[in-house]
């Protein structure tokens, strides 16, 4: 993966930069020793690594503003970092950049149950937001798989989703306001404890902008009352097409499950070998979960099972207890680990129209044979967000490149059938060079024009999202 060449002029001014930062940050918030900056050399896309020039860990909005102003004035690129769990390389540094980590911004600032929001500093982890309100029976809905570790700042940067977004939406649907610092140090407030902020929808624009428009330091998030209960049903099919039809029928029936998860045979077999959840050995498996009181759950599950029966399932297993629910979810939740047990894997994240599911799975199977690499498919079927896991051997020369080429072909297929390159992981560096497959030059230009407005010098996370050749003139002109 190509990255811009580090600017030797910036690297030569490291000592000067440190001394400017020392005036605004405590000593332990500046990390400059090469042995320590190495911690920040990559995120969860570990195939690409580069230690930054420096890392800083500001503990307040004011400190973030000071850091950005200094870097802005000296022309130093800044790469914001939440918890470094990005699978897309969203927090990959360059050698001439400063990593701005938000880990010390982890306080809860306000909880308000009457008005159903929480205001937190952006370095707080996703799960600990729910942790702060669950004793009162509330939760924060977006639940990315990395929720134990990932920070709200990163969730906002990538507009993270999760398994339950079919019902509750993704980050952008649960974000009410932010405090955001622009690259020149200007502190802005957008939205708050009220709905639909005034003016253009800058909040919607910031969410998912991959840390390229500003650094979010505080966020007002919608919290919801926990449902009375939730239970899944497991449905096995001998035909992927039939499984897809079943998903469409469930959705059309007016039941709104909180999640519809799908696994194909390679993934089922891998998880069975790994976790022994007792899944049937079949072509396609659905886990459909609904919420409500016990009686409400029974009624919804009965409707779903009636629909399933009309599609001749090979397995139909309703959960009647917390233990049974846990067993049904066990395989799904260990799917990634199970695949990782077999080999190294690359996790993709394209979205397709649900109606294209059978065709896309068939094509992925064909391509798997052509490339000679195995694939397991596990994904959020209700919204068409696929996570094909391509197995490869990182120690085998050329295998990573082969896997990346295969992955790119799958993502192009997603676009070709009316979908998109990434449903919840973000573009980062990983899908940067595929953006031309989804967008015409003008469509990319207008997005880059947005960055021109927020960050005219193109210093914030500059080498992400857009193909380097497309952003070249802007990045160079800004220097």
């Amino acid at each position, binding site marked *: 993966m190509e990255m811009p060449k580090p600017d030797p002029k910036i690297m030569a001014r490291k000592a000067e930069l440190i001394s400017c930062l020392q005036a605004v940050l405590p000593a332990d918030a500046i990390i400059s020793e090469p042995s320590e900056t190495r911690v920040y050399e990559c995120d969860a896309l570990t195939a690409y690594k580069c230690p930054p020039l420096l890392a800083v860990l500001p503990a307040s909005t004011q400190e973030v503003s000071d850091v950005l102003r200094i870097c802005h004035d000296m022309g130093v690129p800044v790469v914001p970092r939440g918890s470094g769990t990005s699978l897309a390389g969203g927090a990959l540094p360059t050698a001439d950049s400063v990593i701005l980590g938000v880990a010390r911004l982890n306080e809860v600032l306000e909880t*308000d149950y*009457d*008005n159903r929001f929480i205001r937190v500093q952006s370095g707080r982890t996703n799960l600990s937001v729910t942790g702060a309100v669950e004793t009162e*029976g509330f939760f924060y809905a977006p639940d990315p798989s990395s929720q134990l570790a990932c920070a709200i700042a990163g969730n906002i940067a*990538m*507009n993270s*989703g999760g398994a339950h977004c079919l019902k509750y939406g993704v980050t*952008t*649907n649960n974000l009410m306001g932010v405090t955001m610092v622009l690259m020149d140090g*200007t502190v802005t*407030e957008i939205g*708050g*404890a*009220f*709905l*639909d*902020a*005034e*003016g*253009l*929808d*800058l909040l*919607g*624009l910031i*969410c*998912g*902008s991959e840390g390229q428009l500003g650094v979010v330091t505080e966020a007002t998030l919608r919290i919801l*009352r926990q449902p*009375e209960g939730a239970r899944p049903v497991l449905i096995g099919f001998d035909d992927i097409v039939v499984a897809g039809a079943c*998903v469409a029928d469930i*959705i*059309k*029936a*007016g039941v*709104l499950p909180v999640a519809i998860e799908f696994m194909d045979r390679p993934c089922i077999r891998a998880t069975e070998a790994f976790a022994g959840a007792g899944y049937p050995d079949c072509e396609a498996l659905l886990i459909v979960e609904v919420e409500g009181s016990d009686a*409400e759950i029974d009624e*919804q599950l009965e409707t779903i099972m009636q629909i399933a029966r009309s599609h001749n399932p090979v397995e139909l297993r309703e959960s009647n207890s917390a233990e049974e629910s846990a067993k049904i979810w066990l395989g799904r939740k260990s799917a990634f680990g199970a695949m990782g047990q077999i080999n190294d894997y690359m996790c993709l994240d394209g*979205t*397709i*129209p*649900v*109606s294209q599911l059978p065709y896309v799975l068939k094509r992925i199977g064909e391509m798997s044979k052509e490339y000679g690499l195995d694939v397991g498919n596990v994904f959020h079927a209700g919204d*068409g*967000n696929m996570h094909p896991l391509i197995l490869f051997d990182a120690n085998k020369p050329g295998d990573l490149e082969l896997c990346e080429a295969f992955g790119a072909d799958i993502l192009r297929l997603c676009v070709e059938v*009316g*979908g*998109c390159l*990434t*449903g*919840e992981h*973000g*573009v980062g560096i990983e*899908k940067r060079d595929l953006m031309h497959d*989804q*967008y015409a030059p*003008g*469509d990319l230009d*207008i*997005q880059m024009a*947005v960055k021109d407005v927020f960050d005219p010098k193109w210093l914030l996370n500059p080498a992400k999202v857009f193909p380097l050749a497309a952003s070249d003139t802007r990045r160079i002109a800004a220097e």
Partner: protein
Amino acid sequence: MTALTPETEADLAELITQADGPLRIQGGGTRPIGAPTNGAVLSTSALTGIELYEPGALTLVVRAGTPLSAVEKALDAEGQRLAFEPMDHRRLLGTTGAPTIGGVVAANVSGPRRIQVGACRDHLLGVRFVDGQGQVLKNGGRVMKNVTGYDLVKLMAGSYGTLGVLTEVSLKVLPKSHATGVLLLEGLSDAQAVKALSAALGSPYEVTGAAHLQKGMDGAPVTMIRLEGFENSVAYRAGEMQKLLAGFGDFTVETDPERTRAGWHYIRDVVPFEGRAGDVWRLSVKPSDAPGIVAGLPGVEALYDWGGGLVWLLVADGSGLNATRIRAAVTARGGHATLIRGTSAEAFQPLAPAIAALQDGLRRKFDPRGLFNPGLMGQAA
């Protein structure tokens, strides 16, 4: 002046490329919010038709000028709907004509169910539009989850035609509910009502409407809570809700489909203020702040929606209240106020300088010649 009504996206793009003066962008023209802008009316009303509708995937792709009624008819045939329940402004504003889906998106128009399912912008999956240089651009798509590049979809929603002219929108649609139950109680004070609504919204019973009228259909204050879903589930939750709110009084439950529908249209379209003299303001605030804000503005009549987070105010002529005072009351606590009906002030809330600079910067990028709705949304002249 006759409106320009291009019949294809290409014609629209050509027309904008050739334009040499300001254009007033219009869908059905039923929501003339904000100061009248200059220039020739450019209407999308001839860009009509449903491009794609997949009920099993809950997605609809439709040309911007398609009448909302045609969209709703198509969805209704499959038992689905636009869940964000867009308000019809015609009765409140005394306008005529046919609202378009593009107009709904351009003004991010939502209704009572916004409190549960989100606003129009939360259901918008993709857009096609023509920018100020006549370029046809797209963003988003027709799938539910999409983080590919910047989310200009959200940016276009609620941009009132100031960034581009929408030609096509993709929307997430949802199944209609099988049954509706509405809990009703008369006589609560504003403060008590908002407390009751907060308790309802903080329950696990999935409230899809939470409103309070100072003057209901029969003149008395009325508090309304809507539950939707399968029949047994609605009945169960209504019962639980009555227990939960027993401290506020004995809520009755209305389940007649016609009456419940009419009741929520009454709220959605702000019918109580129809045909009555005075300015109409729309306030977005923190729900618990709402009663205090209203109490500090003597002589107004209020309708609370979204559990108190949305306040409609009828400000009688000669009340002595002006925009400065109303906006000060709101911004002191956080929120914003829009003048929906009346000309006594700038309709849109003035923005903080840093935000205004970003907004102006975006407008200059999308519309470098300043063709689209100049003066609207508080743009510096």
